[in-house]
Each structure stands twice: as C-alpha cells, then as structure tokens.
C-alpha cells in the first residue's frame, strides 16, 4: 500500500547541484521543499581524511551502488543490451550532494555556437554540411540570454579563473583569481603559445582563496592535496552543493532532505504531475509525496528512466524518428572523447605529479566548437586541449612507454621510473547527436525494486571518430613542443565502437529543451511542454554535448529553471511565454 503524505509546495528528485539550486531558490522565497535522495546523508565531516585511493577511486565509495540499479548498454540498435554491472564502468554520483561532491571542479562555460549549433552550421557552411545521421538542433536560447545565469552560478560556486582570450563575452570577471601556476602548467602554456594558440587557466571550483558567496556561504582556499576527482573535499575547499546551495536552503527552515528515498515514478493525472512515489529503502515502505510542482533533478539516466516509467511524453523511436523522451543521448565517451591524447615521457625531468587539485591546469580553445573553420574538415564541432594537474595516485598511475610489458620486472622498473616523469594532455571533444544514440527501457533487466532498467544505445559515427583523431594529433603536436623524449599517443581506430563505459559522468539528453514542443521535451526553463508543473532539470535537457565539462552550464540552466519554478508557483502556465513577454 502506498502511503500518501501531506502535500508540499515542491518535491525534488536528487540533491546534487540542480536539485540543490532549485531548493535554495524556492526555500529563500518561502516555499516548503522536500528533496528525495536515494543515497545516504553526507556532510563535510564525512570527507575529513578522504585521502584513500582504494576506497574512493577503486571501490567507488561515493558512487551509485549498482547492486540497486544500473543501466544496460549496447552499441547498435540491432544488438541485445547487457547490464553495466560494475562501478569501473559507471561512475555516477550518489548521496546528498550527488556528483557535486566528487567533481573535479573544472568550470567551463559553453560556447554561443553550442546553443545555436544547427542555425550557425547552416549559416556558415550550408545545409549539406550536416551529416545525414545527425539530429542536431538549436536549444531555443542564445548564449547572451543564458549569460546572467552563468554569472549567478559562478558567483555561487566561487569560480577561480582568468579571462579566456578567445572566450565568449562575460558580464563580469570571475569571482576569484586563477589558481596557482605550476611548473607543468607553465610548460603547457609556453608550448601552446609557441605554436600560436591561446592558452588560459582552467576555471576552477577549487578556491584560489577563501571566499564567501552571495548567499553568505564560506568556501575555504584549496591546499592542492590532490584528492579531488572521486573524493569529497577534506578542507571544504571545493564548491559542492552541501557547502553552498543545500546549506543555504537548510538555513531557511523550509527544506527537508529525505535520504534512502528511491523515487520509482511521477504520479500524475495526464495533465499535471501530482507528486512522486518512492520507496524508503531502509524499510521497503512505499510513499507518495504530493506537491504543487515536481522537479526531476536526478542524473541524465534517472530523469529519463522516471519519465519513461511514469509514461510522460512520447518515447523516442530510432526507427521512425518519432517521439522525444530518450532522444539525443550524447556524452564524453572514454575511448572517443576524453581519455585520449598524448602522454609524454621525460628522461631528464622529474615533476611533482602527486601534488594538484581537480580544476588545476590550462586549456586552449583554438579548436573548440566552431572556432576552427570546418569547411575542409570531415567533422563538425571540435575539441579543447588541456593539461591538468589533478595529482597522480599510485594504484591508478603505472604509466610506462609503449612496448613495456604490463607486469613483471621490466614493468616494475619502468613504472617506478616514470611515475613522476610523465605528463598527459588530452583533447576533450564534442559529440554530435545521432538517430541511433538514445535511451529507452530495457525489455529484460530490472532494478532491485522491480523497475525496468534504462537501456542506453550508443553508436559512434565517422564524424565522431574523425574529430577524435584530429584532437589526438593536436595533443601529439603540443606534447612534442613541450619537450617529451618519447610519447604514447592514443590510436583512434577507424572501426572504434562504444566501449560500454559510463565513466566520465558527462552525459546528456533524454528530455531535451527547445523552442518547439514538436522537437523538444522541455522549454528553456526546463518545464515540460505537456505537463506544466513538472520541471526536468540538468544534463538531460541538453540537446547535445560540447567539448567542455558540463557542470557550470548545468548550474546556469538550474538557476534559469528555478526562476521558471518561482514564476509558475505565482502565475501557473507556460513560463517561457510569460517570461518572454515580461522581458520583451
């Protein structure tokens, strides 16, 4: 029996950045908010002494427990999907704060091109340049319209950065100066400058100094201890939802976070969402939490799965091209878009590789998005090349020059020698959405509570392989300029396929935004077209990915969605129309 609870103003799935931002803005305005979080309660206290590579990087202590739920995966619509059984193939956020606890803090804005990718491509190259398999489309919003929300998120999270010489316009400078410049960052910057490119320091959510955000939340200066990417911060020196937006929301007295609450579906009458149905996984009891507005702020997979299991919107069908839910899945795929590049080995130089932090490094944007002229290139979108000093840890880092055995005497000798004598630069690239890369419900596999698993189908196109090859070649050129004595360069094979790894945590699509209900699930305030009190927020609303890390863009759209929610609670209806009239 489902136990029905007392109605609240808003109920939210997930306590990561998007759920946290919605909660902060709604509670500050006086609304009562309940967040349903399936993971455990986490406080900064949990992260003290976090410097344990085995526990966090190899046993995935902060990541989603796949024994409860996972996805299935395949690389063609004609294949049977297999479950992603192990965290080494899926590193998804969990617990209070979500992926916002363990992100590295790389805090890029996306490009004006990204939001108007279809029209800008047609304008510059003509319609024929768009590959036949592509489903790329404009987002229904411009960079200029999004810019104030970018600014708001950057100030909340205290981003440390410097002006990008070829970056999009900013209304204000970064709230904090860039982080420390290290010898290896200087080496990358010097080499890229010599090659005529435009290096700049990676904007970072690891603080360059102590900071107080506009909500009065304090974030400490980073000490570069090198335990960031799969770890909560030992020092409270990385912007995360716990220390910022969730704290802000809690102080109002209007927020309740309910942990161990696994949301199974959205309850609705076909026109309005009425609440969320969830299982308290400590007792097995099922509850319904009614609310005036319902916010799906889970990860891409969670949001899409909930829409499909709740039968909201029309599921996408790759054979007919009809339907929208599950469409335009994209991501940074391990063997195609992010963990590829050039590793240089240095005979005469030893680096302090074990020092660092998540957002420490430099990048070039000369090949990002459409910054390069693609007229004579066999792909669209681009790649940013970066060096980052995350801090190398000893279990994961045993890099040896090509040709060295993977184990035994020679391996030991070389892996010890080069631990502090190698540097890696990577080209993180965009990925164009295509007809056969999408999500639906798996016909076979179910989660621990009996809900069907989400099935993810990823098909690489030749464009994506070509882009990756170009990125790797650029890394090789730069690493050579940096003076490496030898290099391991990733080989991107012509027939490379998706490797079933969901490891980067950068995934998008499923409930994409747009200006037209015929081609999008939500408007640019993340409000469902066909259920106006349901907001689906986060990477799930992005019609494609960029070559940049997504968190700042997710944060910006979360602030815009929160504005939409506040408008809806006051006035009802389609907030895109109302706010458009108001701002006109």
């Amino acid at each position, binding site marked *: 029996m489902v136990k029905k609870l007392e109605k609240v103003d808003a109920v939210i799935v997930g306590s990561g950045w998007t759920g946290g931002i919605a909660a902060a803005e709604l509670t500050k305005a006086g609304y009562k908010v309940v967040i349903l979080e399936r993971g455990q309660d986490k406080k900064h206290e949990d992260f003290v*002494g976090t*410097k*344990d*590579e*085995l526990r966090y990087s*190899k*046993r*995935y202590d902060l990541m989603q*427990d*796949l*024994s409860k*739920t*996972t996805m299935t*995966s395949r*690389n063609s619509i004609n294949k049977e999907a*297999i*479950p*992603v*059984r*192990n*965290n080494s*193939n899926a590193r998804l956020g969990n617990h209070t704060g979500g992926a916002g606890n363990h992100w590295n803090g790389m805090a890029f804005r996306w490009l004006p091109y990204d939001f108007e990718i279809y029209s800008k491509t047609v304008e510059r190259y003509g319609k024929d340049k768009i590959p036949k398999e592509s489903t790329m489309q404009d987002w229904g919003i411009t960079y200029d319209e999004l810019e104030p929300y970018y600014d708001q998120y950057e100030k909340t999270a205290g981003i440390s950065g410097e002006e990008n010489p070829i970056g999009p316009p900013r209304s204000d400078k970064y709230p904090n100066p860039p982080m*420390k*410049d*290290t*010898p290896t960052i200087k080496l990358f910057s010097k080499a890229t400058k010599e090659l005529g490119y435009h290096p700049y320091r990676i904007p970072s959510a690891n603080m360059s100094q102590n900071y107080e955000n506009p909500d009065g939340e304090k974030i400490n200066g*980073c*000490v*570069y*201890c*090198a335990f960031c990417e799969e770890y909560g911060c030992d020092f409270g020196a990385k912007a995360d939802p716990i220390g910022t937006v969730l704290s802000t929301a809690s102080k109002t007295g209007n927020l309740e976070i309910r942990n161990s609450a696994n949301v199974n579906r959205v309850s609705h009458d076909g026109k309005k969402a009425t609440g969320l149905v969830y299982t308290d996984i400590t007792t097995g009891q099922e509850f319904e939490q009614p609310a005036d507005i319902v916010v799906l702020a889970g990860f891409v997979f969670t949001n899409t799965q909930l829409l499909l299991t709740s039968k909201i919107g029309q599921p996408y069908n790759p054979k007919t091209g009809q339907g929208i839910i599950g469409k335009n899945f994209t991501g940074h795929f391990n063997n195609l878009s992010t963990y590829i590049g050039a590793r240089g080995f240095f005979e005469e130089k*030893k*680096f*302090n590789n*074990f*020092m*660092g932090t998540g957002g420490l490094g430099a990048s070039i944007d000369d090949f990002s998005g459409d910054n390069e002229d693609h007229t004579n290139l066999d792909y669209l979108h681009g790649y940013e090349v970066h060096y980052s000093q995350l801090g190398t*840890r*000893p*279990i994961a880092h*045993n890099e040896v020059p090509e040709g060295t055995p*993977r*184990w*035994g*005497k020679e391996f*030991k*000798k070389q*892996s*010890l020698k080069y*631990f*502090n004598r190698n540097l890696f630069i990577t080209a993180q690239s965009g990925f164009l959405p295509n007809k056969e890369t999408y999500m639906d419900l798996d016909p*076979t*596999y*179910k989660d621990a509570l009996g809900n069907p698993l989400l099935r993810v189908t990823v098909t690489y196109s030749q464009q994506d392989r070509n882009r990756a090859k170009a990125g790797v070649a650029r890394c090789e050129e730069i690493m050579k300029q940096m003076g490496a004595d030898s290099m391991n360069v990733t080989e991107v094979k012509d027939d490379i*396929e998706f*490797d*079933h*790894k969901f490891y980067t945590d950068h995934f998008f699509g499923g409930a994409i935004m747009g200006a037209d209900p015929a081609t999008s699930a939500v408007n640019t305030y993340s409000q469902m077209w066909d259920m106006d009190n349901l907001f689906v927020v986060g990477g799930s609303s992005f019609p494609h990915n960029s070559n940049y890390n997504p968190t700042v863009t997710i944060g910006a759209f979360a602030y815009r969605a929160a504005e939409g929610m506040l408008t809806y609670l006051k006035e009802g209806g389609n907030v895109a129309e109302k706010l458009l009239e108001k701002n006109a």
Partner: protein
Amino acid sequence: MEENRPPRTAKEAAQHQQDMSRRKFLKNSGVLAGGLVGGSLFGGLITNRFDKKDEKKVVNKKEHEAMSMEARQFFTRAHDFDVLSAATEQILPEDEHGPGAIKLGVPYYIDKQLAGRWGINGRDYRHSPYAVKLEDNDKSAGTAGEQSILDRGDLFLLGLRSLDDESQKRFSTAFDSATEDQQIELLTDFENDKVAMRGVQASEFFNLLLQSTLEGAYSDPQYGGNRNMEGWKMKEFPGAQASYAGYIEQDEFQKLEPVSLRDYQGH
C-alpha cells in the same frame, strides 16, 4: 619434552626453526630457489626472515608485529594462498628498487579484500540473465567481460587452481614450485587467453589478479598491503599529505617522507 612439542602457530614455527641452518630450513619448509614461498604455513615470515641479500637479517620488531597480526580470512586451502603469493610476486617481483608483492603483504591484502563485500561483488548488479557466449565475447567491449556469474572470490579460486592445474599439466609441478620462467609462461598464457577456463576468459582472471596486486602494493597500509609504506617509498609517492600549497609552484622535485592515513588521522 618441551623441545619436541610441535609448533602451534606459524610464529612459533618460525622461532623454532631459527637455529637451523638456512639450507636445511628452506628444504624443510619448502622455500624455493628464487625466493618464492612454497611452504604452506609461514608465508611472509620466512621471506622476511631469510632475506636473500643478507642471510643474517631478522625481522625487525615493527615488521614482526605487523605480520603476526595476519591470518587468512578468505582462503581456506593453504596451497591456494601459496599459488596466489607466487603469482603476485611474478607480477611485482622484488628487485633492487625494493620489495616485491609478498614482502609488501599483497597476498594478505587480496585475502582480506576477497573476504569482504568486494569479494562477493556486493556493489555490482547481479541479476540474471548472465548468459554469455564466450566465443562471441568482444574483448574490446568493456562490460562484456564482466557478465560472468562468478563472483570475485569464485574467480580467484577458479583462476588460481587453473594456474596450478596448467602447471601440473605442462611441467609436472605445482605452480608455486615451478621455475620463474615457467611461472611467467603460464601467467602470460592466461593473460592472452591461451588457456581455457570454464565460464570466464582466462584474461578476466589475470586482469583481476594484476589489478589486485597493484592495489595491494600501493593502497594505504590500513588494508594490509603496502607494508611500512614501502610501495609508496619505491614510487616516491608521499601518501596522505595534508597540503602541498607551499610546494606546488616550485620547480625542483620534492622527496617527502610518506604519511599513512593512520598517521594522518591519528587513530
């Protein structure tokens, strides 16, 4: 008589043997040429006590205390543990740079890990169908290799026994008694799927063994490996340092004494 009482523990046994000549002791307890442990009882104690480079070296107090805490939690059959020890030592052998897997405590690390949640794939999705046709397995397809119904404990036992069986078949000797070259040949063939295992590819076992050996060598000492932080010292990794804010802009390499989580946390 007191002197004739059989030793009750590995520690007693080692003490008992202390006065015997090294050669005789090695013969009795099965320690092999090349420094590998074949005896069922003594494991790391023996290799530490009889260091190849210095026959007179005895276990120092700290090492002794650390090792006297060890007992197998997962492996019930001593021979399985001996095969494991020998295999990990080939993956990360002792050399002039420092200790190998056995001295670092890797076999005990793996034993502990297998006895816990990781050994039973407690965080993994374990619902059927598991059906995997091994011949169709695309080795480049990451998760395809993880579709086996075996948990990690099962896989380790099956893999170690397959190693041993293959050694008997080829060389008429147990894996841990085989020569270094023979052991390397066997491990290489497992790595390259040249040996058939039931329900799983041999490389799946090998990769797990390889990964676990590196984990045991380089994880925090709290897990039973990386003894005395020797793994970190070899690698010039300084462990759980509180802060590098004062160093990170400096050009010269910083060689720092490593810090364990116990040092760091104080308890």
